[in-house]
């Protein structure tokens, strides 16, 4: 039995510990928002957040996730309220086909945790996922917008 948390829920699963987390999420837990793109950790479509850090789930054996806290795109919204990034993604009308966007949004989420107000060079350096539709200009704008939304949210809460 392999035990870990996904989006706050405890998971206990009987599977080959070598099976990559990606396929456990998709096939066993039906969390299909995490995508298969390349299978070699290159494109970033399979990106998830594990204990606050980015991970490419297509190369990560599920056995190594034991006891850890996994966040997928399905778990980003809190109590039905979209995360600032998701809202900015809608405001800026970012997605085209949308297939890479789960990984993009999660990559951006970790970036904003470490750099709350990233300038374009920082964004360009840190977001290395592939979008074949070429939504990059809007991704860049949406990340900056989300940073502003977070700042406003934080200020309002004070």
């Amino acid at each position, binding site marked *: 039995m392999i035990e870990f948390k996904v989006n706050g829920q405890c998971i206990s699963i009987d599977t080959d510990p070598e099976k990559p987390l990606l396929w456990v999420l998709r096939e066993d837990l039906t969390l299909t928002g995490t995508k298969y793109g390349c299978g070699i950790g290159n494109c970033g479509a399979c990106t998830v957040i594990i204990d606050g850090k980015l991970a490419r789930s297509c190369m990560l054996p599920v056995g190594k996730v034991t006891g850890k806290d996994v966040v997928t795109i399905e778990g980003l919204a809190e109590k039905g309220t979209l995360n600032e990034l998701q809202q900015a993604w809608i405001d800026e009308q970012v997605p085209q086909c949308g297939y890479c966007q789960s990984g993009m949004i999660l990559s951006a989420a970790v970036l904003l945790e470490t750099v709350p107000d990233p300038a374009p060079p920082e964004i360009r350096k840190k977001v290395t996922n592939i979008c*074949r539709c*070429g939504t990059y200009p809007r991704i860049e704008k949406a990340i900056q917008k989300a940073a502003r939304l977070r700042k406003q949210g934080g200020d309002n809460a004070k």
Partner: protein
Amino acid sequence: MQNKKEEKFIVGLTAEEKKTGGETALNAWLEIGAGNSFTFFIPRAEMGQGIYTALTTLICEELDVDPNGRNVKVTHPDALLGEYTNFGMLEDANIKVEQEGIVSWMVKKVFNKFPLIVTGGSSSVLDAWNRLRLTGAQTRWQFIEAASRRWNVPAEECATDNGFVLHGPSGRKAGYADVAEDACRIDPPDHLELKTKDQFKFIGKDIKRLDIPSKVDGSAVFGIDTEMEGMVYAAVLHAPVLGNTIKTVDADEAESLPGVIKVVSYDNWVAVVATSFWTAKNALTKLQIAYNENGKQPLNTRSIRQDQEQALAKKGKRQITKKGDIKAGLKKAGRVIKETFHTPYLAHAAMEPLSTAAFYDNGIMKLWQSSQSSTVMVLAANRAAKAAGVKLKEVIPHVSMIGGGFGVKGELDVPFQASYLAIQCPGVPVKLIWPREEDIRQDKYRPGVVSRFEVGLDEAGYPLTWSNEIAGQSILDSLTKRSFGLPIKTGRIAKYKFTTEGAEHLYYSIPHQKIEAEVFEAPIQLGFWRSVGHSNNAFFVESMIDMCAESAGVDSLAYRKKLLQGQPRLLTVLTELEALSNWQESRPKTHAKGLGIWHSFQSNVGVVATAIHDHEKQTVTISKIDCVVDCGTPIHPDNIRSQMEGSVIFALSAFYFGEIEFEGGKVVQSNYNDYKMAKLGHTPEISVKIVDSDHRPGGIGEPGVPPSIAAMANAVSRVTGKRLTELPMTKMGVKPGLPVHND
């Protein structure tokens, strides 16, 4: 079939369908439910081009329903209905069904019987523009008529407002849903006057895309996301040497692995079915496979180049265009310039790998696929049934959202394989996924092409004669052979169509023209790659025009303006582009602008690229793109901008990195690590301007790609002082740089 709730009524059906009652529910464009909720059935696949929103907007404009209302939903219908045929796509073959006449009548008759439901060729809006607005208008008319009869008031006194019929004098109001049952029993008139542009409420406005909310929270279901109780998973491997087939498979070791259910082989592929895709993919490596050799010399990139050169050197090539008299023109020409250009083979590499889920039970085949054509899905299932020796009673194709299509997701092979596998596993849903390596190595490639020019210039340096010879593999021949076993006869114009596309009809005014083409055979499968032949020919033609301008010592934009007299739409694009790009601005020697302008898919797009040469780092960076698009009446401006941005990046990937190579009969590249894509770090600053227009809308998915590649090539040629005659750019010995953004 889809479950229909009792309280729903169907409107917008033809009279014949209405007679058959409730079960024709799927055959509609629009379903209206309790609480005045609207579900639009859009028979074009949403692959990021924004078609769900664009077509819904066309209906909504005349129907008078806000497409961004909370009560609006959109989905792809399962039914193969005649009226879902994409007649707009046939216009590419010069069949215009909107014109009255015997040909048009017959074509409609045939395709109403055998629906051609396909998303491609940037044709969806072109096809829908008149008929979907008319459908909306007729449906609105039905609601008004039903309400006015119920209220016993003249229909002329009724108006509508966002899903409601209003009777001003009495102040009465009814939701469309309240009168839907009556409305669907009233036949609307065949013709109704449609709104003029100044009356539009939604067309031309920035409607929010209907598919986007589902794409930020993981809830959008792509074909590859189909999951069902008891599902098993298949991974496929094709004979790596193109053209070979499977002789024998020793599956003992693979079948002994835990989780492996079955190994199935057919023709040139073998698939493992297992309890997980990961297990299936791993098991593929344990198969011992012997192949039937295709009997040809193993191809490689050099041999393909030789085939191209031989084809080009051949006498008696197919003449595509002839105008004036080249020989006579050449006698008057002061100067003759010659150049030969080459392009590489390119893969689609959509982010969602090829996949189809299939469920075969009791003679019924259900398919779930991110497909550009439900017609092809049904054809594929029937083929597979024939190959497997079973008879199908029914095929139900569910078209899911597509994680990037670009032309590859209308192919027969994937749904064929999935259906074939499902027949071997009756009663069990099977999901087939092509591993990324297969997706790249067994793609239907954009062919590499060679194009040779000889241009005679007059005293002022403008072309008097234009000879262009083009050679490559035939896309259409490859497609008809693999899909229908029907090669196209040599000499038939269709065989050359996608080789010469865009080059065969120049918009530049040149008195003497001769355009010839030759095709050759090779065991490489070819397909439609975003903008197809235009992606090659825009690079060739626009590079050559720039060379002519350089030779004449004339500014390349001014040079084109002179040659485009008589092409008002292209001239407008050029003029707008001149302003948008600040074309005349002075710039350091390390910076240069390059131009490309192209007409394709009924739209006109001009692009200016700015390139920066860093001599020290030996890099060239495309730092800025200015783009002007005239796609006729703009339906959804923000989405037009989005498609242009995407086209620029798509072009940039091809320009910087794109190349599929062959060695020993196999494809060299296999994944995103060796078939590279432009990333955010490479992204130039992009400005897009849309020309306001009253023309019939053209496409927006593809026409931005050809001029972008051309503009980048011209900018890089200028900044390096070396004419780029071959793609990708790295062939010149310079690497792509990263634009610096200071804001």
